[in-house]
């Protein structure tokens, strides 16, 4: 404009510069404005939360606690290197390819690629994997609750709490999920505190001190009833509650580790890694490290989740990297925090608390106690 007024010539290159600068500013600011006001804003963070809640349960918390007996190094290396090179790659690719195929499930994709026989074989393998995972989780629950009135009371109370939440959402205030989750959370904390009191009473010791066989039958019967009840009554409210608890646990673990900054005094690789006589899981490093720490490092089950609901909710391809690869990185972080927590707990709480301790290993308690003190897991300052 100035040049035109002064009668000077205008070089064409400024047209190009002006255009590029305008495009960049427009792309950076005006398209964002349009996105915010007209197009639905990108809510990939919410989908990230959904996906994370679906892949992460008790696995990244329980697995590292079990593997802590092998020393700090195997679990740490497997969790960090395993997730970056294996687990996250699997999640990312399955999510990406499922999304490109219109959100098809793993079974459907296998059928498309491998034909009827190959697809059926893949489906059977998937079913077997699911059965094995459920069996392992049931074993963990059985071991955690056996001989523990506290555990039986607190976990048992989650059933009436979930039923109450389900009825509240169905009949009283439909859709108020956050509200009922907070109420459920308060009730759950009360159940955990109450469990401690019940543990000290005589009737608690008489009626709630159950052995493994009784607990196992209880879980089988509960599993059957839970499967045939309507979803709104029991499973949906449990799901809301566990999502709420998961986010809370991660936050509390992170804050606790930053505040306490626990010092690790366990050996890098303990003797249990080669002898297979550990107090928590009786098995050597190969293959037990990779069986115990699945979620958080590499879990085949994630392929089912990554080809389930998440790919159907993805808005654009670019999001798959953030949600697929990033989601499991977050889970791995939970696993590392759980490992740190397990390594910093006094062995007196870690091993004999009845938490995830199996029957044959209780015999090994004496062996464990006979270990020199520096080989045991200690809290700083003890």
């Amino acid at each position: 404009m100035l040049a035109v007024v002064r009668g000077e010539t205008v070089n064409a290159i400024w047209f190009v510069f002006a255009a590029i600068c305008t495009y960049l500013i427009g792309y950076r600011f005006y398209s964002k404005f349009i996105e915010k006001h007209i197009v639905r804003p990108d809510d990939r963070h919410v989908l990230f939360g959904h996906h994370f809640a679906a892949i992460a349960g008790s696995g990244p918390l329980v697995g590292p606690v079990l593997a802590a007996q092998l020393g700090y190094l195997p679990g740490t290396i497997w969790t960090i290197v395993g997730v970056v090179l294996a687990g996250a790659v699997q999640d990312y690719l399955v999510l990406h390819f499922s999304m490109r195929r219109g959100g098809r499930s793993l079974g459907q994709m296998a059928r498309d690629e491998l034909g009827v026989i190959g697809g059926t074989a893949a489906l059977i393998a998937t079913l077997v994997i699911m059965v094995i995972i459920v069996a392992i989780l049931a074993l963990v629950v059985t071991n955690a609750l056996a001989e523990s009135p506290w555990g039986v009371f607190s976990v048992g109370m989650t059933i009436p709490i979930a039923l109450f939440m389900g009825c509240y959402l169905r009949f009283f205030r439909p859709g108020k999920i956050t509200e009922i989750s907070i109420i459920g959370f308060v009730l759950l904390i009360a159940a955990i505190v109450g469990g401690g009191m019940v543990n000290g009473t005589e009737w608690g010791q008489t009626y709630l001190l159950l052995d493994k066989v009784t607990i196992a039958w209880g879980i089988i019967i509960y599993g059957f009833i839970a499967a045939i009840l309507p979803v709104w009554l029991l499973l949906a409210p449990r799901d809301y509650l566990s999502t709420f608890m998961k986010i809370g646990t991660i936050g509390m673990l992170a804050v606790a580790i930053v505040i306490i900054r626990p010092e690790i005094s366990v050996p890098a690789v303990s003797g249990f890694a080669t002898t297979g006589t550990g107090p928590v899981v009786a098995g050597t490093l190969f293959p037990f490290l990779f069986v115990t720490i699945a979620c958080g490092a590499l879990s085949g089950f994630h392929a089912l989740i990554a080809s389930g609901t998440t790919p159907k909710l993805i808005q654009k391809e670019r999001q798959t990297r953030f949600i697929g690869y990033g989601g499991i990185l977050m889970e791995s972080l939970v696993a590392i925090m759980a490992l740190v927590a397990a390594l910093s707990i006094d062995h007196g709480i870690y091993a004999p608390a009845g938490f995830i301790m199996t029957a044959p290993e209780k015999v090994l308690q004496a062996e464990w106690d006979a270990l020199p003190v520096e080989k045991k897991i200690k809290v700083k300052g003890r």
Partner: protein
Amino acid sequence: MTVLAGVRKGARGVIWYLKGVLGEDAYEKYVAHHAACCETDAADFDGAQHPLMTAREFWRDQTDRQDQNPQGRCC
């Protein structure tokens, strides 16, 4: 005042995120979708008119769908 406003904005963001992750915003999304697709096109995918469900009807429908198509959860 500005600090207070910032805290309020942050808290609102946390609640929005939590509701999104827990799925509480499903009815609002449904209403927005219904307004967008059923009023402009006068029909949904199946070509039939669908009256807007009330919140209570919507949540019943939602849980009934979950019954028919349960979603997996990992370890």
